[in-house]
């Protein structure tokens, strides 16, 4: 698995619950090191071991942790670059939703080794109900996407309702209802990146 995913989970746990919790997770998961490197590859089993250990350690369901990870990835100031990349998807939340079809391809442009699930967005009849289907590994990524969708709604200032629905085997599905596109102000976004990027 691409270290970027392992490293993201590590930073989320460390930043949200503190270093002591992370140390506890490291020892419960029997990690042979204390930090993941974003640009190295790791055995697939490691991230599940970390997730299980964190779930035990914090007494929180894995699903909740994954969804919180998705929110963290978008809203934490340290991850501004990821938020920016997602905002490139469009000027409105609706456009952003439509750009999710391309998310896998866009990620591959930047990091060819990064394996993300294939994502497909299906629009409802009245134009405000959508279904996002995530197919393929890593397992639980749909939960992360739920957090991302929620945080991006705040970013655009849109009001949405998210609901898990039962999908086919091997798929994770989220029902998205866009109630209002410009409910709040949202966060500032300019195409021109920070100086030096």
């Amino acid at each position, binding site marked *: 698995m691409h270290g*970027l995913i392992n490293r993201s989970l590590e930073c989320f746990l460390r930043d949200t619950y503190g270093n002591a919790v992370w140390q506890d997770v490291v020892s419960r998961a029997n990690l042979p090191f204390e930090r993941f*490197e*974003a*640009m*190295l590859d790791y055995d697939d089993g490691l991230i599940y071991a970390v997730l299980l250990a964190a779930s035990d350690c914090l007494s929180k369901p894995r699903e909740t942790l994954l969804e919180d990870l998705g929110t963290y990835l978008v809203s934490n100031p340290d991850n501004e*670059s*990821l938020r*920016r*990349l997602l905002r*490139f998807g*469009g*000027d409105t939340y609706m*456009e952003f939703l439509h750009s999710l079809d391309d998310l896998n391809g*866009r990620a591959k*442009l*930047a*990091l060819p080794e990064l394996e993300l699930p294939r994502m497909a967005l299906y629009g409802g009849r009245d134009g405000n109900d959508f279904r996002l289907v995530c197919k393929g590994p890593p397992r639980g990524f749909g939960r992360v996407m739920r957090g991302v969708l929620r945080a991006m709604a705040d970013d655009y200032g849109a009001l949405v309702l998210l609901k898990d629905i039962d999908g086919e085997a091997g798929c994770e599905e989220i029902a998205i209802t866009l109630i209002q596109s410009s409910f709040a102000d949202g966060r500032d976004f*300019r*195409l*021109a*990146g920070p100086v030096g*990027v």
Partner: protein
Amino acid sequence: MMPMHIWLSTDGIIRQCGATVAKLFPDRELPGLLFFDCFLVRRPCDVGTVSGILDQQGEKLHLVVQNGRNTTLKAVAVPVDGGDGVLLDMSFGISVVDAIRDYDLTISDFAATDLAVEMLYLIEAKSAAMAESRKLNTRLQGAKVAAEEQAFSDTLTGLKNRRAMDHVLTHFVEAGEKFGLMQVDLDYFKRVNDTLGHAAGDLVLQAVAKVLLDETRKEDLVARIGGDEFVLIFHRMTDIDKLNEIAARIIRRLEEPIPYCGKPCLISASIGTTVSDGCQKITADKILMNADLALYASKDKGRACYTVFSEDLSSKGDEGDLREGSMSG
């Protein structure tokens, strides 16, 4: 539909322009102005009329925006049906990154078919990935330096290094251990390096390492502490005669020619020996200094010999009382 277009009349007056083109001149109303006052056609050169532009039909034009920012544009021109002027479709090309900053452009300023936003996306994504990679490289570099600093081995010969020797010597002195210490300095090694090259020098050092390991016991320490300097520490061996025997054997074996690419490398060694009986209050530095003095006595005597340290050497007085041996004499 085409935010980067300009429609020119045949006399060069701008009739209409796209919303993004208008942003290049926020303080001026482009329709009605002379096109060539606002844009310089740089390539092909010397185009200053609409008919000149029409001659380049279908060719790529390079324009420079005359607004003080010198933004460059690419463009193609096509005649409008019925001789009603020219339509120019433009794009920022590689200047898109600066243009977005200079004119505060947004995603909707680009045509849906324009790849500009994808290009920006790629630039940012690759920059972020590159930054992570550079961080990793820096950390790995730091780890490598730290590992080397903490290492106890000499990578060329596999012997212990200076750091390891310091550790062992300090430990022996503090623990009051008895030991003999030999400083071995190669003779004529520089000549091998200079005449046969560094590869020959490296080979010789590896051969020397083998001899030194052969002539010592497992519990002894053999360290390379400099280019052609070695230190041997003999645990619980303070018998001068035995140490001299070993020194003589080492010199004899090092004088055997070492073949390199069909040529013999000829070296020898000078040795200075000292012992610590474990009772006297002596520091590690002093022991090394004593061995060094004995070594230089060997060098003074014409190299290829061994000398045992005695107090006389400290005063550099007469050397009559030295127990010494010479392989060449």
